[in-house]
């Protein structure tokens, strides 16, 4: 069986590995054209199968939509969640894929972002209500949505630094458990604290057009396409930003630390500083997607931010191919999309998810779309494998 598998892998490498090389060999303007076409397609996705403005449909494409099955979810809504998760995966990829730190409590930052906009932006939040009383403000007063964005970013950044400061000196697997605990602590604090709305959570979270109401024309409750386009725009901006970061001095330091911390330190890269940066940047991205999530759903409660979600986030990164942004985006998309499209099997979706994790990791530990550097590292490690005297 392994022989057949290897042959299959050879053939696949021939077909797809060659494709990546051919892509890189294209002239720059052709690559640009390709990227632009791809982005245009992403913006078109909510109408998949239809031609907007006409009654024409493109046969076949309909099959991919989640509302093509009985009881399926709103297609734009699913796309919005996919975009959110892609954003999360890009942030977590900075932490796991680039800096090599295993963070199992990423949902904590997602929660911090969501709670920031909820507690400062909603008129129903205990924080805003107490501010109204303190400063004698009207009952409709709350912090504007646009102001909530820097607040959420700042809070999640600070949460990242606060968590990273004491824990980043720990070895890899200890870090995993401490971060797991951190995610739980955030959830339990939110659940037990009166100022965070306790188990009922917070409702009335504003969006770009202010508090949720039926009068909102663009970012309303029923029409979800604008939300998807907003999230997609944020994703594209962040891809650009993280890409620049990855190829900067900071990005190179992350890779050096991931591959050999001691060697990096000897070469003058101070590991702690750059790890903390990775943590903080990852946290800020997580917070941003939490903010979008809370704004779209207008209502959050602590039970949403459980460990299972953290595990899902890590799985997205690792399954997709940690270290490669296209890979983690693919992983995030698949893990958000597949369970929705194949709802008929929803009873078995966790089981299938678990099986998929095991199989992918056993057969393709570098992930579906790995970064080339990462693949080489894994091959290196296999060569160094311990002797096995049977």
């Amino acid at each position, binding site marked *: 069986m392994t022989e057949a598998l290897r042959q299959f892998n050879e053939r696949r490498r021939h077909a797809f590995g060659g494709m990546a090389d051919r892509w890189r060999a294209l002239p720059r303007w052709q690559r640009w054209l390709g990227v632009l076409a791809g982005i245009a397609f992403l913006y078109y996705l909510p109408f998949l199968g239809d031609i907007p403005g006409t009654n024409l449909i493109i046969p076949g494409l309909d099959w991919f939509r989640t509302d093509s099955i009985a009881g399926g979810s709103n297609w734009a809504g699913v796309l919005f969640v996919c975009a959110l998760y892609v954003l999360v995966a890009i942030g977590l990829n900075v932490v796991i894929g680039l800096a090599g730190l295993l963070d199992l409590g990423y949902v904590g930052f997602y929660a911090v972002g969501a709670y920031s906009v909820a507690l400062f932006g909603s008129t129903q939040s205990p924080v805003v209500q107490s501010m109204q009383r303190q400063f004698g403000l009207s009952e409709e007063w709350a912090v504007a949505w646009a102001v909530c964005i820097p607040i959420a970013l700042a809070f999640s950044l600070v949460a990242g630094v606060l968590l990273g400061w004491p824990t980043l000196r720990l070895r890899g697997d200890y870090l995993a458990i401490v971060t797991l605990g951190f995610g739980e602590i955030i959830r339990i604090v939110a659940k037990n604290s009166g100022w965070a709305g306790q188990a009922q959570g917070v409702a009335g979270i504003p969006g770009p057009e202010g508090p949720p109401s039926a009068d909102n024309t663009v970012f309303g409750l029923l029409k979800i396409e604008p939300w998807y386009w907003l999230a997609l725009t944020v994703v594209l901006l962040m891809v650009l930003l993280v890409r620049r970061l990855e190829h900067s001095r900071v990005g190179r330091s992350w890779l050096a630390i991931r591959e050999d911390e001691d060697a990096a330190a000897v070469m003058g890269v101070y590991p702690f500083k750059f790890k903390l940066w990775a943590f903080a940047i990852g946290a800020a991205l997580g917070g941003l997607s939490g903010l979008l999530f809370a704004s779209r759903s207008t209502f959050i409660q602590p039970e949403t931010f459980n460990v299972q979600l953290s595990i899902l986030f*890590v799985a997205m990164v690792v399954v997709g191919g940690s270290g490669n942004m296209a890979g983690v985006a693919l992983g995030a998309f698949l893990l958000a999309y597949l369970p929705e499209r194949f709802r008929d099997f929803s009873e*078995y979706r966790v089981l299938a998810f678990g099986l998929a994790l095991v199989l992918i990791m056993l057969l393709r530990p570098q992930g579906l779309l790995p970064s080339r550097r990462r693949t080489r590292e894994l091959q290196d490690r296999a060569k160094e494998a311990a002797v096995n*005297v049977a």
Partner: protein
Amino acid sequence: MNFDALFGNLAQHTVDGLSKGAIYALVALGYTLVYGVLRLINFAHSEIFMVGTFAILGTWSLLGITDTPSIGMAIVYLLIGLLVGAAASGATALTVERVAYRRLRRMNAPPLIFLITAIGVSLVLVEIYALWMAGFFSGRGFSENRLVIGIPAMLKQETVISVAGANITNVQIIMVVSALVMLYGLDQFINRTRYGRGVRAVAQNPDTAALMGVHQDRVIMLVFVLGGLMAGAAALLWNMRYGITKFDIGFVIGLKAFTAAVLGGIGNLRGALLGGLLLGVIEVYAATLTRSTWEDVAAFVVLVVVLIFRPTGLLGESLGKARA
């Protein structure tokens, strides 16, 4: 902070904490053994404990026990439960190693990959139980059952001794004593026997051990089985004390047990016992002080504080250093 509730009955809370900690300690031994040898957090270990609780429940309902039996029969049933629980957990642990880890070990994959497969295996186990086995073991055929399932009580929990205002029940005594006995047995096994020497050798240096003729795979299998046996015993104690199980009880217990292992010094058998008992006591104190709302936070705060100030745990990491 409700200090009156705590200090008003300190002895009682300590006893409750110790008996709770006995379960953590036994589960923690599994984490510690595997970590000591493989430097790997066996994330699926919590599910191995869960499997044990269900296997024991299934056996007992198969034997047709519905009510508390007489003392003589209860001892027989408990021993049967111990055997079945240990066998089921040990077999599950072995399967997990074969299916999820062996191939990765051959590839010398980074720890992250192990962790993800372990999470995958753990999800699979939990879902298999939620979808089919929980129903089967509670006597309803292979059907979905995500509810809490009651387990018939083997011993009536009653106070046998009162010390300093603490009422100590028979079950609590059994729990703490059996945790101590299991640890002693394991300690002797690792330190005195030929197999134990193999385990210590692989923990110290796998390559050298292999060159000296230690069969690495066999040692690793042994370590997983030993961890499974301890989890099976813990499952029996859990069933006796709490009398309920559920498809997802493993998760929280696993997390606490891992915390206990780190607290005592991961890779250190006596550390696992100390960490487990200590964590149990800390938790009961925290629960009393805050009326249970912050119980789970206490464990994590302890973990973080320990790791910051003493990253090797209270007794240090030392499976390889022959101090076990």
